[in-house]
């Protein structure tokens, strides 16, 4: 990432939000931060947050690129369901783990390719184009599993979501690695620039010699791949493919994470690190609500409030306005 202050700014707000939440939790329940060793691996609320959050992080990773190109992918939740269904059916049939995982990611890539073609080649508006798979995808997943919740009995598969290496949880490690690799790829090569360019002004990028349509399509494919892997993690986590419930509303969380992380829905500049923090923030909030004991009926409120707060802080106009009020006050006093 560039060292310019501009790029770093968006990361500040989710970081502050995260810090506030951690303090709140630690005050409400001092055990919150306690990490112990249990059966040779780390154990504690922060570990849970990372493990549970890893699936949303993965979705946010793909979504970041799609949003950076000026689009949005509403179908990720359905792709999670499809990919989970594929995993379950294949594992049930005794397919090797590697093949299964490849198939899961492959299903995501396929879905992403459909979205990419619809958006980038045919020019359908992203919300509409991806809504189609969002709506139809869950039906497809249900067809794959025949309307059943299919139980997965493969410890090695389960390891993906709940395993530990060197005492550390595997899923967050994997996801963290993917974030890092993506970040390196995007910023060390020109790919990140291309994505931002296409998102900022597609026509101008095309005129400058970029294959803008290809860049956009690839963003959807990447997003699909992430969703596919996230689907495998989801299935591994509950040891079952739940075509009806898996990934429900996941697209909202992913979009929230990206937006809270400072990437604008209008496209252009993006922040991979921001999306990571955004997803972490959202998961921490969810866990906080359990920890603090917010009654289930009002549970959606804090999330809404958090998102509005971060969005407000990120809005230049709002900051300017606040600054203006302060100056005016100071002036009035003087």
């Amino acid at each position: 990432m560039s060292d310019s202050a501009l790029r770093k700014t968006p990361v500040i707000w989710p970081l502050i939000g995260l810090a506030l939440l951690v303090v709140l939790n630690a005050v409400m329940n001092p055990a919150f931060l306690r990490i112990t060793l249990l059966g040779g691996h780390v154990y504690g609320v922060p570990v849970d947050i990372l493990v549970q959050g890893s699936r949303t992080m993965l979705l946010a990773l793909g979504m970041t690129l799609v949003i950076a190109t000026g689009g949005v992918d509403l179908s990720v939740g359905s792709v999670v369901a499809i990919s989970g269904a594929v995993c379950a059916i294949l594992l049930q049939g005794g397919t090797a783990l590697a093949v299964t995982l490849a198939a899961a990611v492959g299903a995501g890539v396929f879905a992403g390719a459909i979205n990419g073609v619809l958006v980038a080649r045919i020019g359908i508006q992203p919300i509409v184009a991806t809504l189609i798979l969002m709506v139809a995808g869950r039906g497809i997943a249900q067809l794959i599993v025949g309307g059943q919740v299919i139980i997965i009995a493969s410890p090695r598969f389960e390891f993906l979501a709940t395993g530990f290496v060197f005492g550390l949880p595997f899923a967050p490690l994997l996801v963290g690695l993917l974030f890092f690799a993506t970040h390196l790829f995007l910023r060390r090569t020109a790919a990140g620039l291309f994505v931002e360019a296409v998102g900022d002004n597609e026509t101008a990028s095309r005129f400058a010699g970029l294959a803008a349509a290809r860049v956009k399509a690839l963003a959807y494919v990447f997003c699909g791949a992430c969703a596919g892997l996230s689907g495998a993690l989801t299935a591994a986590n509950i040891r079952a493919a739940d075509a009806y419930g898996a990934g429900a509303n996941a697209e909202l969380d992913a979009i929230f994470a990206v937006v809270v992380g400072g990437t604008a829905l209008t496209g252009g500049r993006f922040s991979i690190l921001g999306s990571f923090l955004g997803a972490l923030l959202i998961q921490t909030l969810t866990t906080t609500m359990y920890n603090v004991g917010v009654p289930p009926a009002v549970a959606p409120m804090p999330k809404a409030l958090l998102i509005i707060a971060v969005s407000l802080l990120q809005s230049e106009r709002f900051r300017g306005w606040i600054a203006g009020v302060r100056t005016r006050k100071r002036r009035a006093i003087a």
Partner: protein
Amino acid sequence: RPRPKKPLTIGFAQTGAESAWRTANTVSMKSEAEKRGIDLKFSDGQGKQENQIRAVRSFITQGVDAIVIAPVVETGWDPVLREARRARIPVILTDRSIQTSDESLFSCFIGSDFYEEGRMAADWLAKHTGGKGRIVELQGTVGSAPANERRKAFAEGIAKYPGLKILDAQSGDFRRANGKEVMESLLKKHGRTIDIVYAHNDDMALGAIQAIEEAGQKPGKDIVIVSIDAIKEAIQAVVDGKINCTVECNPLFGPKVYDTAAKLLAGEKVPKKLFNKDELFDHTNAATVVASRQY
């Protein structure tokens, strides 16, 4: 017994296909119809009442012998039910009842008694824990009827036992992943003080079991687990000793519905409210049913 000359035609307006329970319910209705030679006109409402109303209207125009509705929502049925009455077609409601000012608009309701299920769970607990223990409750989707009833019934059921205390309650949305996630947090929050988990459905209970195991505790032993639905997987868990008790919420409505329809068409009187029989499975009886369980 006297067989009707023409095979019966029955219209069934199903809610949708949102869960394994619903799928089992649909399958039961369809396969039982096939078995009995009934011509079943099936319609999937996709979770929307207007779709169901439309389906019912088309059943009326097609002149079916009886109409079965699994209503998506409790209200707003009066106009179409009046049309059915005008056409002299008996209407059976299943699964969920409706709210109406005119109870004569439908012949009878066959359902699962969510309240009774919650009460059975509470009673079992009271009996098997000696009326003592700290409970965490995994609630269903906020605002949904089963969650409301199962919460109310359980609370009322344990009220008689001051030793049974609800420590914490969170919604797991009836989903396995959420059940697991909520349970993980509650385990950390309450440490080893949790004695009992009461889950509004098996999916959440199964998720919670995973969380408990990952926390190094033994579900069914260190923590008593009670849930509702009795899907095959949960009964297996009872056999394995990971769930202590699961109260059935039987989706196999087919036989009862068609029996009732036949009675109605034969002019017999049937009670206004019928409950599909729900059983309770614990270590005493789970092993005997698990093999034959279809869903």
